């Protein structure tokens, strides 16, 4: 079963067994620009993603004038 990743209103699928950082690079998403969350908990870049998981990606870049 693939791993599903969501970012805002987009959904991606990748194969399991790689690190989340590797998965993000494969999807052309800058790892620095998101925080991955699994079952409500933040996970580190070196976590291996597993079959059937759903990972929510929270964008961290804010812009414009503060």
């Amino acid at each position, binding site marked *: 079963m693939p791993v599903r990743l969501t970012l805002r209103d987009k959904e991606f699928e990748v194969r399991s067994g790689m690190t989340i950082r590797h998965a993000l690079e494969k999807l052309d998403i800058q790892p620095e620009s998101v925080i991955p969350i699994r079952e409500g908990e933040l996970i580190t870049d070196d976590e291996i993603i597993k079959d059937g998981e759903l990972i929510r990606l929270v964008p961290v*870049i804010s812009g*414009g004038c503060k």
Partner: protein
Amino acid sequence: MRQHKLALCKEHFLAWIPEQTQRIIKKYHMFEPSARILVAVSGGKDSLSLWQVLHRLGYLADGLYIDLGIDCGVDYSNKSKRLTERFAAENSMQLTVASVAEVAGANIPEAAKLTMRGKNKPCSLCGLTKRHIMNRAARDGGYDVLVTGHNLDDEVATLFGNILNWKVGYLARQDPVLQATSSGLMRKVKPFCRFYERETAAFALMKGIEYIHDECPFATGAKSIYYKEYLNQLEADRPGAKLSFYLSFLKAKESGLFAEVNRDARAELNICETCGQPTSAPEQCAFCRTWNQVRSRDVANA
């Protein structure tokens, strides 16, 4: 945190952020423990996290939320205001809400259409208006210092943009601490200036702080976001590049780079004849000039 070669569990990360904040406040002599602090809060992850950290550290920190009146079909300002008000109430913090429409006569999107400033993008007018209202609120409220939630990514993106265009005046002024001036500019400091954006977001999420995840609708295509993405690419290849870029800049400034420019700029400040706030212009400040133009065009169009 690859830039620090450091991996922390949740418990230690949540302790590390306030410890480092305190260290940064001391290192840059930002303010004393007894200072009255006004935190500019937007409802975003940085300012709400900073406000909470300052409170936990025992500082007397009140909040200022500026209602810009931005809707754009996503209810942006109302949403961020509600989150900020709820946060303040839940944490028993003192919050002041200043509405741009009440202070100046129109909300930001309406006003932007009536001025040439910013070429149809309200960001320039918005920045000008916020800086004016923040300074006035801090001064009138008797605060010692104005605090903003700028993080390292904000600082590095600004630095990068100013270097690309060699905006020497802006480079001279960029600093974790902007000193107060006798003409009335409040002391302004950025205690989160050495935290990566990813760290402040992680802190907010771990703390369960409800912040506005949506970007300002007008920030789409903003240069600052483009620079941040570019710099993140650099960071991915060279962990620590952003931090090193910023710290090297501060070190160079400390060694005297831009000192001449800074001295000249500070000597030139005047007092606006309309609002009494400091300005580099000889008569009226940019805020008064721009908003007078907005109000006169609004009347003409009525």
